[in-house]
């Protein structure tokens, strides 16, 4: 039998740490978050580590035994709608969120509830795309939740009691929170949702102890600020650029790298001439102050709702400090983390909107890409070549794994006046009569070359993210309800389990009492799998 822990790490020491931790349930300090890879039995941040890798160093489940995985427990939320959570696990307790701003703590071995919390939502909230939430942050003895009515809430990790509850902004204007926040030092970072409503996007940092807001970075610059000139007239006031996916943190430079979403209205450029900074960008922010160090805009003046809200992944290679993102616009970008300089951009799915690159190497739109009144077919479609589902980076294979969607849509303009709190798209999309049925794939990209090395084809596009593990495995789900283990080197499927509901979530791994589990949400249930 192979060791539970990757042989790169001192396994015996770690097992002792694990055993002690279960008993003592130590506070989750910033130190522990920084060194998350030293306690692989836990999953302490949305992406598993600050670098965004969604990689587990556990290898008890591996390519030789994955075929014998079984479901160990199932937890049902008894709620409808998309279940998008990535659970956290700390010292044997699993913390996760559900639809309608539920949060809960479970015995990670059995799935039995320890506490349940549900935020009381007003009846007139404005969630864009379902009453969803993607998870919690944990720090000290608290877990942190962002809600659909734009509250930020700290809960007691042991009881689920509210410690503090702060309204970040007026939800009636279209603001909400759906992301899992990120805890850094004594701060909890939240990016706002609401790109469909003509909001003015921002990223907030709150004192974990008091709920006091420490800084706010507006993703649409106001008068007098650099970048303000990239907006026509007053369009900046309702310029969108939400920040609804969890970013990553580089302790070496104390910087957050946070991606932003579409300018508003999402599919109509008329009335907001200019690049529309900092929509569809990656922002490098000082973690203490929220000051902008650099930005890179993937899609300038977007007219296709191609949010850049995909988890970016930090990759260190020798003395090179890189950050990579598989973007919704169909390109895989690699940037220098120190400067934001673009190093490469390569298509990883079908793209028809660009034929050329600018002097920096950034793909630029051709004259066949803007939506028209009659409608114009563009690939990728409105839901993108990928979306918010997490990618994964496996340092053992050196590959970047992403869930790709192959679909093209007709984009047609549909002018709408701006009204506070009303949907504000400016355009519509739908599949062409002649379009092929949509399909999807898990693709393995070599970050060194930007080339796709292999793909595992899905019957239809999936909203599942990807987990890689030191056992040489990838885990992902599909729209037909399967949870699948694949060989990370070749993409060969090794095992699958039919969960009875489509996956709208990204998997994670943890261990309790020396047993490795892999967890995924599907339908209205959270599943945990392990060896028999």
């Amino acid at each position, binding site marked *: 039998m192979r060791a539970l822990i990757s042989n790169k790490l001192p396994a015996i020491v770690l097992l002792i740490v694990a055993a002690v931790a279960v008993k003592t349930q130590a506070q989750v300090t910033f130190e522990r978050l920084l060194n998350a890879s030293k306690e692989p039995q836990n999953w302490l941040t949305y992406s598993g580590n600050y670098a965004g890798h969604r990689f587990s160093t556990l290898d008890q489940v591996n390519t030789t035994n994955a075929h014998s995985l079984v479901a160990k427990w199932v937890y049902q939320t008894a709620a409808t709608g998309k279940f998008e959570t990535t659970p956290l696990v700390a010292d044997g307790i699993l913390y996760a969120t559900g639809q309608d701003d539920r949060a809960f703590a479970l015995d990670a071995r059995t799935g039995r509830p320890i506490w349940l919390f549900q935020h009381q939502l007003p009846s007139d909230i404005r969630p*864009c795309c379902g009453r969803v939430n993607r998870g919690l942050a944990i720090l000290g003895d608290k877990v942190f939740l962002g809600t659909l009515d734009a509250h930020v809430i700290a809960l007691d990790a042991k009881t689920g009691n509210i410690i503090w509850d702060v309204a970040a902004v007026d939800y009636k204007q279209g603001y909400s929170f759906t992301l899992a926040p990120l805890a850094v030092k004594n701060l909890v970072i939240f990016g706002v949702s609401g790109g*469909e409503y003509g909001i003015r996007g921002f990223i907030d940092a709150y004192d974990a102890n008091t709920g006091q807001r420490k800084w706010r970075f507006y993703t649409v610059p106001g008068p007098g600020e650099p970048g303000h000139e990239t907006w026509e007239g007053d369009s900046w006031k309702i310029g969108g650029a939400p920040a609804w996916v969890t970013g990553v943190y580089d302790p070496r430079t104390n910087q957050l790298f946070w991606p932003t979403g579409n300018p508003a209205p999402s599919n109509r450029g008329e009335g907001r001439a200019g690049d529309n900074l900092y929509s569809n960008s990656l922002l490098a922010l000082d973690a203490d102050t929220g000051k902008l160090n650099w930005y890179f805009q993937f899609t300038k003046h977007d007219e296709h709702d191609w949010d850049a809200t995909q988890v970016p992944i930090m990759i260190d290679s020798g003395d090179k400090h890189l950050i990579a993102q598989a973007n919704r616009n169909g390109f895989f970008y690699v940037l220098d983390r120190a400067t934001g300089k673009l190093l490469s951009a390569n298509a990883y799915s079908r793209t028809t909107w660009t034929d050329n690159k600018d002097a920096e190497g950034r793909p630029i739109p051709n004259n066949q890409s803007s939506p028209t009144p009659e409608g114009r077919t563009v690939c990728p479609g409105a839901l993108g070549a990928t979306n918010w589902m997490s990618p994964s980076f496996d340092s053992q294979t050196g590959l970047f794994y992403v869930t790709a969607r192959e679909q093209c849509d007709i984009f047609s303009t549909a002018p709408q006046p701006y009204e506070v709190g009303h949907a504000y798209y400016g355009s519509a999309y739908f599949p062409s*009569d002649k379009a092929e049925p949509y399909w999807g794939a898990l693709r393995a990209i070599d970050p060194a070359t930007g080339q796709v090395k292999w793909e595992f084809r899905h019957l239809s596009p999936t909203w599942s993210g990807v987990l890689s593990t030191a056992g040489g495995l990838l885990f992902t789900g599909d729209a037909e309800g399967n949870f699948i283990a694949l060989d990370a080197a070749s993409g060969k499927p090794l095992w699958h389990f039919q969960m009875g509901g489509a996956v709208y979530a990204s998997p994670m791994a943890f261990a309790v009492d020396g047993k490795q589990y892999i967890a995924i949400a599907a339908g209205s249930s959270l599943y945990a799998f392990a060896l028999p």
Partner: protein
Amino acid sequence: MLTPTVCRQKKSSFPISRRVLLSILLGLLALAALLSSSTVAQESRNPLSTDPKAAKAGEFEFRINCAFCHGLGARGGGRGPDLTRAHKRHGDSDADLFQNITQGIPGTVMPANGTNGQGVGMTDDEIWQIIAYLRSVQVQSPLKPIGNPAHGKDLFYGDANCSSCHMVEGKGGRLGPDLSSVATARTVESLIESVRNPSQRLAWGLTESTKEFAQEYETVTVVTADGQKLKGVTLNEDRFTLQMMDTTEQIHLFEKDKLRSIQTSRKSMMPSYDLTILSDHDLDDIVAYLLNVSTK
């Protein structure tokens, strides 16, 4: 004996006042429910029907929220019915339309407003704008069949052989879609196209949260491990399994990795009925029959 009675009386005075309070509360709740149900727009007529701008605003709302399935111009898409028909299967009144948009239609993929998981739900006003738009594009006179429905029925169950694969009102085959209500969902042009060139557009499953029913009538041919060749239509399929009906209407359930081969095709199993097989006149009669049964 006395003391307990007094006690009982004392005790009972409290529940009475609570009961009164309760009934007042219940009354208030009922009133609130009544008020809210009337404001949640159980209006029987569109309050925007006389607003000339409503239909135009509704056209854009329709594009954003409805055209994905119902097509540009509400003429029906690959997934949703033609809404320009005066007769709609799930109700024609303003109140019916409002109800169908807000609540969805059970047993179909029509979702309740705001629950398809993509995009924002509409306000009541926006829904009334869409209804105003639908009225503006609605074909006013009920559709008059241009053919002879009685002869169409004879052809359907006889020489044209439609019923060997299609069912209407409980009679016929199972390999193709049930056509009992197809004419409320499709334009005459698309019905004709589906007969002349059935592979042009197979039924589409939905790829997103409403996908749950998936049958697209793809043609599938499998060779089993023992060499048996089977042809039919897919009932459902995922990455690892296949549920199919063969040409003798037997259902087969397969694990794909145990099959020797599997081939799916979007070329329909239905033959193309060109003019040498079916005259325009006879086709009009069959369409007239389908219109007739659909609008019963």
